[in-house]
């Protein structure tokens, strides 16, 4: 992309974007006469412009929200320690998420010593 080329694309885009329908088409035909590549570039940008509403903002939002994500290991959470989960539910947390998180972060988690509840005595 040379500076001149970019300037040319920009000039045509900025003029075309404020026009609509037939006026836009007429302008594009005139401005891009004998330059099919220029026409294609500008058309692609105009198309993108129509779809771009809020797009950049959403990526930044995505980034800001990802600051609040937590890494967990891929465990089968359905087979998780549901007894401990009930304990967590009483504390008002998202039980399924935390049980998976705890399972991943606590190596000895499956052992009897770490269970909050013990199985009923036989």
């Amino acid at each position, binding site marked *: 992309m040379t*500076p001149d080329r970019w300037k040319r694309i920009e000039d045509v885009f900025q003029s075309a974007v404020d026009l609509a329908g037939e006026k836009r088409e007429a302008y594009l035909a005139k401005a891009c006469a004998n330059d099919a590549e220029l026409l294609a570039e500008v058309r692609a940008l105009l198309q993108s412009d129509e779809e771009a509403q809020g797009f950049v*903002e959403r990526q930044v939002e995505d980034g*800001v929200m990802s600051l*609040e*994500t937590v890494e967990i290991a*891929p465990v089968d959470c359905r087979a998780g320690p549901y007894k401990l989960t009930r304990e967590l539910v009483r504390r008002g947390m*998202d039980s399924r998420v935390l049980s998976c998180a705890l399972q991943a972060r606590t190596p000895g988690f499956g052992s009897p010593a770490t269970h909050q509840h013990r199985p009923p005595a036989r």
Partner: protein
Amino acid sequence: MQGDPADAGVRKQVTQLLVEWGAGSKVALDALTPIIYDELRKLARSYLARERAALTLQPTALVNEAYIRLVAQDLPDWESRSHFFGVAAQRMRQILVDHARKHRSQKRGGGAAKVSLNEAVSFAPERGSGIVALDDALKDLAKFDERKSRVIELRFFGGLSIEETAQTLGISIATVGREQRMAEAWLHKAMSSQPEE
């Protein structure tokens, strides 16, 4: 946002750091980074809370709040604030992108899934990849149009208004509008044609 204002001692510290940084101290800027990071996390948490309540909030408004809380308005003159906004927007972008890149590569390495503690349904493994693609596209844009890249950085990572952006870059408000519109179109096009990760 829960918004209890940063306490007086912290504000004084941050103001001092800003002054030192304004005088060219890289050490001061490094010291500011974790503070900015904490502010961002608080804002992200409040944003998630509001999202659950189905209120719409612009993320750029949230980012701007971080600067207000970092006492940017205590800087002596507009030139200082403008300078601060410029570098802080860069730093904000860096923080967000570095975080996303780090977690993305961990995900690829260990197959770990990411879970938000605030989400009722667990997995959001795609979260964060958009901002990395945006960063790459912005770098590409900057190669042949530095000013458009700066406009995007100030507006979206710095949360600056159009007027503030115009003053910071020394261009007209109308120019900011045109720059932003074409930059957004170009970025969207560039990111739409990237292969899926």
